[in-house]
């Protein structure tokens, strides 16, 4: 790897973790995914096809890892970047790359905690500037300052890690030929089970559980692929859930408030919304979470509604910089409600601060409850599964198509929520999160998710015993062929996946589970008991 290549990869790694160009959630869900990052690394290192395949393979583990309420169990971006880069440089197969990527993901999640912690210090400075009514500096404290530091730090450590790490990896791979690399492949074959088990923790409940086994059996006996399984379960799920025309009611009976666009313009509203989507988590920290992001978004609104009154601006900035944390799309809706309320206040309505506080504090949790589920449990895995499958076959257009489709849906829905919030207020948002459409969509996603998770076991997890008995140099019994495959093909991957699921359910930490799984599969691989 040349220094230029390492630098380019490091820059893209930083972009994936930053807010520009697709927004805090947009970048996280696209550039930062191993599927997309693998493709980018592949292009930079001159092998886009292999990069795409490796990235997609690593992405399977991270299908079920979501980031809710400021937690990041494992950093998929770091895993995808370093895993793909090292695998390409060292000429490793995708399975061995996966084994290499996991520790990188764990390291990344530690760095996330460090970032979230030190960024709390910027909040002091933000509060000082708020006290001085410096609305022009909100974007500086929310984005320019923290990201100036973050960009330099991330690009520096990623560059160093990639540049020096790749020569170490090349030497390591030369040293570790044969059994150790085989054992790494065995390890990589088992690891996708963690991703599937993590998916199950969010959906394996009620009658949807039957579909998990149905999905598994359909692939075991009929050899069904993952994408056909997805579409078949989608049809079955729609039948089971039973959608009706009334489910759209929450979107239809929307009343428009009469003060809309009397003080602010549509441009102001969209300006603040774009700020929200881009920068809501650019200064993510444990003390206020998205609080400073929210106030930054409110600045274009407050500039109009305070009419140049310094004290009103200070009060407004203080009010909107409180602790805030919710789903990105629904956050836009809450921003819309606040914009409308500020507008009504400017027109003379008596709206006390408590009304804003109770609205934001009351809505942010439940909005995240529905919003995180829709975006991270429904949308992200569904779109990912389709394009991961295509990418595994070497389709280099798949990561790009994934990015476009995800962003189109995410921002399309976000715009819809923004307008519902702005035009119809807090109660309309409550009707939205309580709507039949959303609750049925979640039920549908559980069924489809369980079915697809079952199908993924045979397509993505591999574990084959290498135990044979000989008589007169003839194989008389092959444990895998003669027992497991004869009974139910894929039985071991199924048992491993369910084992991981129950370990998580019993309260074991996922890091511990991964370490145990890696060690055991590595030992079985070295001993040649598994192929």
């Amino acid at each position, binding site marked *: 790897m040349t220094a230029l290549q390492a630098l380019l990869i490091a820059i893209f790694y930083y972009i994936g973790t930053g807010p520009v160009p697709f927004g805090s959630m947009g970048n996280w869900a696209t550039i930062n995914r191993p599927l997309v990052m693998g493709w980018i690394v592949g292009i930079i290192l001159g092998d886009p096809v292999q990069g795409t395949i490796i990235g997609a393979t690593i992405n399977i583990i991270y299908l079920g890892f*979501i980031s*809710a*309420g*400021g*937690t990041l*169990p494992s950093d998929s971006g770091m895993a995808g970047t370093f895993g793909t880069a090292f695998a390409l440089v060292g000429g490793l197969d995708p399975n061995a790359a996966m084994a290499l990527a996991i520790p990188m993901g764990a390291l990344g999640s530690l760095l996330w*905690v460090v970032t*979230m*912690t030190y960024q709390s210090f910027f909040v002091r400075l933000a509060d000082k500037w708020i006290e001085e009514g410096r609305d022009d500096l909100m974007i500086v404290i929310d984005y320019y300052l923290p990201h100036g530091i973050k960009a330099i730090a991330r690009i520096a450590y990623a560059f160093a890690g990639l540049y020096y790490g790749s020569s170490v990896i090349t030497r390591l791979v030369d040293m570790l030929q044969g059994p150790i690399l085989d054992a790494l492949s065995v390890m990589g074959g088992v690891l996708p089970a963690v991703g599937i088990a*993590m998916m199950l*923790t*969010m*959906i*394996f*409940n*009620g009658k949807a559980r039957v579909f998990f086994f149905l999905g598994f059996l359909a692939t075991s006996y009929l050899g069904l692929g993952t994408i056909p399984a997805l579409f078949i379960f989608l049809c079955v799920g729609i039948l089971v859930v039973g959608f009706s025309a009334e489910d759209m009611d929450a979107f239809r009976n929307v009343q428009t408030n009469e003060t809309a666009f009397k003080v602010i313009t549509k441009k102001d509203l969209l300006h603040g919304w774009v700020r929200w989507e881009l920068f809501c988590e650019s200064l993510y920290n*444990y*003390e206020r979470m998205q609080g400073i992001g929210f106030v930054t978004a409110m600045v274009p609104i407050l500039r109009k509604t305070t009419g140049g009154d310094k004290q009103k601006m200070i009060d407004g900035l203080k009010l909107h910089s409180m*602790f805030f*944390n*919710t*789903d990105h799309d629904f956050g836009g809706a809450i921003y819309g409600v606040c914009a409308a309320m500020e507008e009504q206040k400017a027109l003379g309505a008596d709206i006390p601060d408590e009304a804003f506080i*109770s*609205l934001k504090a*009351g*809505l*942010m*949790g*439940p909005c*995240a*409850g*529905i*919003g*995180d*589920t829709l975006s*991270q*449990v429904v949308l992200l895995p569904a779109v990912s599964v389709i394009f991961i499958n295509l990418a595994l076959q070497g389709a280099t257009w798949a990561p790009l198509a994934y990015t476009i489709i995800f962003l189109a849906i995410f921002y399309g829905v976000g715009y819809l929520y923004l307008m519902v919030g702005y035009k119809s207020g*807090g*109660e309309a948002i*409550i*009707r939205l*999160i*309580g709507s039949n459409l959303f*609750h049925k969509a*979640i*039920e549908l996603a*559980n069924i489809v998710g369980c079915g697809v998770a079952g199908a993924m076991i045979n397509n993505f997890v591999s574990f084959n015993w290498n135990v044979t008995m000989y008589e007169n140099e003839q194989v008389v019994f092959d444990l895998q062929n003669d027992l497991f495959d004869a009974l139910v093909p894929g039985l071991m991957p199924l048992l491993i996946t369910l084992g991981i699921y129950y370990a*998580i*359910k019993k*309260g074991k*930490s*996922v*890091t*511990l589970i991964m370490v145990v799984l890696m060690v055991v599969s590595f030992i079985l691989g070295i001993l040649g008991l598994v192929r």
Partner: protein
Amino acid sequence: MKNIVLARIDERLIHGQVATQWLNLIRANTIVVADDKIPTDNFMTMILKAVCPRNCELHLLTAVEAAEFLKGEPGNEKVFLVTKGPEAMLKMIEEGCEFKEIILGNMGSAAGRKSFNRNVSASPEEVECFRQIIEKGVPIYQQMVPVDPKVDITGFIK
């Protein structure tokens, strides 16, 4: 006593982590929110009814009412019990409820609260509640999402 599959203290009540990760994993079918203010707060009542998953029954009760409900005959309920802070939990224990353990989620920073770790801040009164709960033999663990390790909070409140 009814079957309580998870007793949680979390200021945000039913939110992203609870909806995406806890409810399905513990397979709760009944959600009890024990809070003295919420039953008479129309706005919060409306929000919690909206967010409650359709496969769960929702009960919005005061701490005393919740204790009565939980002490009732066990049926098919698998209860997810959630309170905003430790006071309601302590109240229910004093009313005779038995909890195996309490999982502590988020309590945000606010005036008068000191932060223990990145997700939990508490006032001296709240710390006293934690202490009394632990003294009554109910361990409290900090754990945001099920895949995190459980951390005993005894160390924080000394």
